[in-house]
């Protein structure tokens, strides 16, 4: 078993970390707005990969040289990880970006994961992983789980950093009936790009979960099961029984009385009778969650509590799109968790709609992403997973032995 105890002490590893990350932190404080942005591919990946590759070759050639051994040591790995953790702690407590506390903004730590010190610590980790892999290969030979986990993580770091300059993520807002739109506005509000196809929204569909009823009595809550609310439906909440008399899927509340109103943004209302376990009627009346077309209607039920209706929540939303490509027009459905691939490396994701209008929304918000580093990151992640499973098998065998 190779150990690196004899190469670098804790103090040496910590000194290198403090020197590198500290210098980067000083540079950050002196220029608070600085963020690390690598150039677009292929130069981004070249800048990220070449140093790691050089370190790897050096590790293969001179694995026993004290400085290089120290660069691949566990001590340095721990110190660089601790540096990353220390830098991440403020972001784990306070928001980042423009919502960050003034002190963080003043010193340029309001975008800590794009800051110079974080990039320096990540670079140290990449060097350490590269050197550790090279030394392990040269001195011990091929250990599948070690190489897979460390190389997988290294590939993820390098490809994510190297591809960041070409990564583009932006919003495409589509309206029903509008002409095809291919313009992506990046989230930084500065960059924009054109999709490889024009998008036209034919129809936006939003389905709700059935509205839920709650019987609230002090700190006690009873919530209805998921079920269709039709006239005649019986619901038991605790020892209280509810019977649905009427159901209006879209309504407006006029002078305290719901009336059918099929306009965008209207919500359902329910007329119910409430009785106790002996069948004695406790209350009768309308329930409405409250919205742009009327106030909330709830039903006091004596000692049993108060019956309220919750606003319906989105179950599924999807955009029926027409994709205008160079070779023709195609109709597709875009849903959450089911991205759509376009040519030119673009992927489309269904992310939002006009929430004020709800099911009546005629607007669909789509996220367009171009991520040329995708294959590299995916390969690294899979290698990492393989290494983890291999490591578990090895640990189990070692323990049995």
């Amino acid at each position: 078993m190779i150990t690196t105890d004899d190469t670098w002490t804790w103090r040496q590893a910590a000194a290198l970390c403090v020197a590198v990350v500290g210098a980067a932190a000083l540079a950050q404080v002196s220029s608070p707005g600085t963020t690390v942005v690598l150039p677009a591919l292929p130069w981004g990946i070249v800048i990220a990969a070449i140093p790691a590759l050089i370190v790897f070759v050096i590790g293969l050639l001179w694995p026993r040289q004290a400085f290089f051994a120290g660069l691949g040591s566990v001590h340095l790995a721990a110190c660089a990880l601790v540096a990353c953790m220390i830098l991440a702690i403020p972001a784990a407590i306070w928001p980042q970006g423009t919502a960050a506390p003034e002190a963080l903004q003043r010193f340029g730590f309001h975008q800590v994961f794009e800051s110079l010190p974080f990039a320096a610590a990540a670079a140290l980790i990449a060097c350490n992983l590269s050197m550790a892999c090279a030394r392990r290969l040269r001195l011990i030979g091929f250990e599948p789980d070690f190489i897979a986990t460390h190389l997988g993580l290294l590939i993820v770091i390098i490809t994510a950093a190297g591809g960041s300059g070409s990564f583009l993520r932006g919003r495409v807002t589509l309206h029903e009936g509008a002409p095809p739109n291919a313009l992506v506005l990046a989230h930084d509000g500065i960059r924009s790009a054109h999709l490889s196809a024009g998008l036209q929204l034919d129809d936006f569909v939003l389905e709700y979960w059935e509205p839920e009823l709650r019987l609230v009595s002090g700190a006690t809550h009873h919530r209805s099961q998921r079920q269709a609310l039709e006239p005649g439906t019986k619901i038991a909440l605790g020892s209280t029984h509810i019977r649905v008399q009427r159901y209006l899927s879209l309504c407006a509340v006029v002078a305290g009385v719901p009336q059918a109103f099929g306009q965008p943004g209207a919500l359902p209302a329910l007329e119910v009778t409430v009785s106790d376990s002996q069948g004695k009627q406790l209350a009768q009346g309308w329930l409405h969650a409250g919205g742009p077309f009327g106030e909330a209607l709830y039903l006091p039920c004596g000692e049993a509590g108060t019956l309220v209706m919750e606003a319906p929540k989105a179950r599924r939303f999807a955009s029926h799109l027409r994709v205008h490509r160079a070779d023709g027009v195609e109709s597709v459905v875009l849903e959450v968790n089911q991205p759509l691939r376009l040519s030119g490396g673009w992927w489309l994701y269904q992310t939002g709609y006009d929430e004020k209008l709800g099911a009546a929304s005629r607007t669909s918000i789509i996220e367009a992403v171009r991520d040329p580093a995708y294959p590299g990151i995916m390969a690294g992640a899979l290698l990492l997973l393989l290494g983890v499973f291999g490591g578990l098998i090895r640990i189990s065998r070692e323990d049995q032995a």
Partner: protein
Amino acid sequence: MIADLTTSLLIGAAVAWTAGIASSLLATRAPRWHRLAQACAVTGLACLVAVIASMWVSMQRPPLRTLGETRLWYASLLVLIGLLLEWRLRTRSIRIPMLGFGLLFTAIALARPEEFEHTLMPALQSYWFVPHVVVYLTGYAALGLAAGTATWEYYLARREQRPVQIRVPRLLVRTGLAALTCGLTFGALWAKEAWGTWWNWDPKEIWAFLAWATYLVLTHHERRLGEQRFLLSTVLAFAVILGCWFLVNLLPVAETSVHQYAVSPT
């Protein structure tokens, strides 16, 4: 009716595990109590599995969304991992921490009954939902059990005036770290599919990174730490897991998180 059944089963689990702890303590003097302790552990686990199964059926969705739901999974996975490890390593040193932790989380579920929502937002309707959360909870359970076993081992070693043994906590930490790594990777793959980005440095993700990095440092340094300090570090490292699981919801940064659905609606 479902609520009554759930409460009865939770009480059943709590009673079984209390009896299991009592039998385990008796077994330190008379080994014949071991069988009863094991039977109690299995009975309690069966009750909790029945609770989870009944919730899954009645809510028509995986009960993995809120803190209250994950607590039930946690207690079950903790005892399941403990029983598997007992069988695999032929050790009984994990039984009391395992049942103690299981009982604690079951008692919290009984003391703070949650109003379970039946809805599941579109972002969570993915085949990644169950593997991502279950693998993470398996990691949390293994690492919680490691902290519990470390504390128990430290206490026993001091009482019996013998050197501490770290075989079980070390195996649990390694298993837990492997599960955290898988959970992290599954989460990244899911995020890519849902939002187009692998990693957003969302507050929950930052805490997940902190927890993962803490255990990476711990496992890489276990040989250099020495046995007593390894046990102590295992307990301290678990505090970061608790931060990732519970504390993050109370911090100023929580409102910017896209993982807010993990907070109980009550």
